[in-house]
């Protein structure tokens, strides 16, 4: 994966974007020939920007995230990211044979962090997700919300410029999800990280993002974009969040309805 860096006049490296998706299409082999899942997607994520990708089932939003993560190759088009992205899944994907702390240390180790620094760095990251003291805990001893927070700490341990999140809070209850939205917003603002966050939950998208991108379904295309200027910290029950959510939901319904009429 190419790292795109532009040289500024004074010689300092200026990063133009955290991820650039240019005219990307993806098709999979289906029973009736190749099936187009993503059609000519173009999308930039600026450094430090928080973008949510919103869409109904079958819009290929997870497929797009896999392409950006480098787990799969696009059929056409080009994707460049500034370094290897970190990826967080709907399932925590923590390794059950390691403790919470060692899971984070593995990410550090694979990135080449010296052994003597790993323990301290892992403790710091656990503190960042407010899980001080969970270092020695096994994965099965943690609650769902705590597991996702350790997974977030592990993703942060990769020290990537961009964090990809594939519906990471979808399996959590509403209150835990609220808390994690808050954590994520706080950490994003502290770390200046770029985030590309996939969800089918409109309110979640509006609660978190600076920019919401709506994908149409089958094939996935960029249908609409909104810039969210509501100041952070927001709450999911804020009137402004609700208002924009209504507008976006209306558009999303329209996209879904189109599939009912042939």
């Amino acid at each position, binding site marked *: 994966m190419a790292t795109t860096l532009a040289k500024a006049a004074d010689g300092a490296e200026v990063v133009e974007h955290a991820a650039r998706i240019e005219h990307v299409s993806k098709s999979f082999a289906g029973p009736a020939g190749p099936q187009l899942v993503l059609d000519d997607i173009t999308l930039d994520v600026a450094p*430090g920007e928080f973008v949510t990708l919103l869409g109904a089932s079958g819009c290929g939003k997870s497929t797009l995230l896999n392409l950006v*993560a*480098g*787990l799969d190759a696009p059929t056409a088009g080009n994707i460049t990211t500034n370094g*290897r*992205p*970190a*990826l967080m*899944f709907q*399932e925590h*994907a923590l*390794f*059950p*044979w*390691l403790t919470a702390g060692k899971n984070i240390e*593995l*990410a550090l*180790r*694979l*990135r080449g962090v010296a052994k003597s620094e790993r323990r301290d760095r892992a403790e710091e990251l656990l503190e960042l997700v*407010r*899980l001080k003291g969970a270092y020695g805990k*096994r*994965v*099965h*001893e*943690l*609650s*769902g*919300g*705590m597991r996702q927070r350790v997974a977030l700490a*592990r993703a942060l341990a*990769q020290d990537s410029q961009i964090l990809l999140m594939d519906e990471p809070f979808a399996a959590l209850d509403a*209150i*835990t999800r*609220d*808390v994690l939205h*808050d*954590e994520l917003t*706080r950490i994003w*603002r*502290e770390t*200046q990280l770029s985030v590309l966050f996939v969800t089918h939950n409109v309110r979640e998208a509006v609660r978190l993002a*600076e920019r919401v991108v709506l994908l149409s379904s089958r094939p996935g295309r960029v249908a609409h974009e909104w*810039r*969210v*200027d509501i*100041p*952070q*910290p927001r*709450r999911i029950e804020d009137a402004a969040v609700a208002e924009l959510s209504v507008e976006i939901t209306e558009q999303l319904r329209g996209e879904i309805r189109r599939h009912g009429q042939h």
Partner: protein
Amino acid sequence: MASTETKADAADQPVKDSTGGDMAGLEAGLDALETTAHSGRPGFRQTFVEKILPPLVAIALVLVVWQALISFKVVTDPSKLPSPSDVWGEVKNAWLEGTLLGYIWTSVSRGLVGFLFALVIGTPLGLLVARVKFVRAAIGPILSGLQSLPSVAWVPPAVIWLGLNNSMMFAVILLGAVPSIANGLVSGVDQVPPLFLRAGRTMGATGLRGTWHIVMPAALPGYLAGLKQGWAFSWRSLMAAEIIASSPDLGIGLGQLLENGRTASSMSMVFLAIFLILFVGIAIDLLIFSPLERWVLRSRGLLVKS
């Protein structure tokens, strides 16, 4: 981008607004509520009643039935069925003569050395079959087929190739145990959740690093099951080899003891040998493999306490 300024300001100072504090308290509450309390280890009394007593009762029952067969003259010929006390006498004699531990050690040392060889060969073989498509297609079916071949079948060719010596014993053990160990690892690797591999790849664990950090630890439960079966096969193969291929140079192991009992028409010696073979098999399993397996499963939260 109006929101950028707000963000830059906020990044300088720690986020300390009423909402944040609120949420932190909520979070602490959730963590406390959702963390399951862990019950301590069961006491000795409970372990004794639940784990130790039942097998003792079963053994006692077998002894009672056995003694009853003799006492009530159901079986009268001692060359067909010796009494428990005759067999016990045989054990005591062997102990007093100092040969009992020798019999056991001859076989156990052979079995363990052979098993370690099988481990060293079976592990990389299993990894190759599991990870390299061509190798899997080429020898995968043969490897699982070999598991169903009784290892006794290897004794005659091994004797012809290697003669009556320890190498022949090891060859038979290897041919019995390597397929089990390799197959155990293959099924362990096959059952690794794809999510772990994807997570590993995004963290940069690919190729050998992925195998070492992700695939091997994730496959450990299946691998251990393969090792357990591999040991059982090692032990069985060894006994077959010792019974068929006895030679004075080889020393007396448990298999030879059984064969000696048969040639001497001493049913109590035959029973002694069978009990010792069974005893060693159970002891190795209880002392090595079961604790290892339980430790691995418990540390991953896979062991449900009943």
